[in-house]
């Protein structure tokens, strides 16, 4: 059943609760009163046309863009005063648009960078081994610099690096950008597998709406920085009017 975004926000028990978030760059807000919830183990797709505010939403959640007002509550903690570099310690991993691989560093250095903040060095080392098991292509290219990797390998690296911190919430921005459909499908399937295996929650920003809805449990549709609807992925796929109006298919 679709949720009317204009209804008063009914607080749900979620891992991430976003309440009336307004944020942007300088004096012009990009997001207006955005509100939604992500529960543990849920994959939520953020959909919308270019310029809808999807990337800004993720950047606001991880602190890269300052919120003008509203609340971002993660596991009961208000994140307003939490610094960007502390987010990862709270269990939030953000894989930014363009993948965010440090191209001057090697694969191994990029991955180790993802676990430097961790006090449990033994578990960080285990997580590193697990990532190499998960992405054998990376294991074969440990010493290669980031700029020598293909687009798919960079995406694996960015995702693997985020997983080293054993996050509870993954903010994933445009993982399919510039990738072949087969690679995109593998990465999205991996998200489901991770969710099922570890209870990871994912907030997935994706231009490829069909792919995103194929893997998501729920979707929220943004238009000009406002949430125009929230619904289950199945219902969004079936809503022809909505698809035509906002999702372009």
């Amino acid at each position, binding site marked *: 059943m679709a949720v009317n975004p204009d209804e008063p926000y009914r607080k749900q028990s979620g891992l991430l609760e976003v309440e009336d978030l307004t944020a942007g760059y300088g004096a012009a807000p990009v997001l207006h009163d955005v509100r939604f919830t992500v529960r543990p183990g849920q994959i939520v797709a953020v959909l919308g046309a270019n310029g809808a505010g999807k990337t800004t939403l993720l950047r606001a959640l991880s602190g890269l863009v300052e919120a003008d007002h509203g609340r971002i509550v993660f596991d009961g903690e208000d994140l307003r005063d939490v610094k*960007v570099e502390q987010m990862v310690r709270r269990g939030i991993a953000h894989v930014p648009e363009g993948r965010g691989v440090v*191209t001057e560093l090697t694969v191994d*250095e990029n991955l180790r960078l993802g676990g430097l903040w961790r006090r449990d060095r033994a578990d960080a080392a285990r997580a590193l081994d697990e990532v190499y098991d998960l992405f054998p292509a990376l294991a074969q290219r440990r010493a290669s610099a980031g700029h020598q990797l293909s687009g798919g390998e960079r995406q694996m690296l960015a995702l693997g690096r985020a997983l080293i911190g054993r996050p509870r919430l993954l903010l994933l921005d445009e993982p399919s950008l510039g990738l072949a459909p087969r690679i995109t499908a593998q990465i999205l399937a991996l998200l489901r597998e991770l969710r099922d295996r570890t209870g990871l929650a994912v907030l997935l920003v994706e231009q490829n709406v069909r792919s995103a809805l194929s893997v998501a449990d729920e979707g929220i549709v943004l238009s000009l920085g406002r949430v125009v609807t929230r619904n289950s992925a199945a219902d969004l796929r079936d809503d022809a009017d909505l698809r035509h109006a906002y999702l372009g298919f």
Partner: protein
Amino acid sequence: MDRFFYLTFDGLSRGAVYAAFALALVLIWRAARIVNFAQGAMAVAAVYVAYSVTGATGSYWLGFAAALVFGLLLGIAVEKAVMRFVDHSSPLNGVVVALGLVLITQGVLGMVYGNEYRPVTTPFRRDAFDVGGIALLSRYDVFVFAAVGAVVVALTLLFTRTAAGLRMRAAAFAPDVSRLLGVPVGGMLTLGWALAAAVGSLAGMLVVPTELGLHPTAMDVVFVSAFTAAVVGGLDSPIGAVTGGLIVGLLLSYVSGYLGATVAPMAVLLLLVVVLLGRPGGLFSSSKARLA
């Protein structure tokens, strides 16, 4: 031929100092994308501290250590109190602020110590000893090579073998991504300035005794050579800084030795022009664009 060997070793000794100074410039450029034109003045301030400590205690080595510690603290202070607040929307802003720091530092040093040249002692003799009948290098030259070599090795180990080095490199290349990965980017920037200022102070301690003496502007000419070395090697490349330093040192030595000291500055500028025309990013620049 003896003369060639002598000039070669003399050039390498000078070049080692330029390499250290260029390394300091590269450290800050990589961390903050600022050419620290105040590096020379900051180094001179550290040498004045060494001058005072050595004068008060009679120990060169206490003065040497004081200069390095002072340089480290000065780097932290400059980054935290000044450079952190520079608007980086235009690269010129950082340059203008750095030049302002040069004027302030030199003015303050002139008021405190006066504007006359002061002789600075060296811990080892500077007269060259013979190797196979050829006067090649002095004990002081050996000290210079050892000191600069130790710095290069230490920085290499720091950047390639330690977590702090990995954080510093990541913060320099991709600050936003690094913050998302829990790297305290501001702290890494401060550390970069501190290290650079300490290395610059070391270069000042090594080169000032070989020039006219201690003066608030003593490092100005050295700065030009070191800046050329950094640009020749590539401002992003520590290896380039060291190589560029040695190239500039050798060039200055050969040109001074064979053509006369008055021609040497022109040779450095000519080298700069040739490299900028042929390979604008420097000899060790990467050909790929920065993506992160």
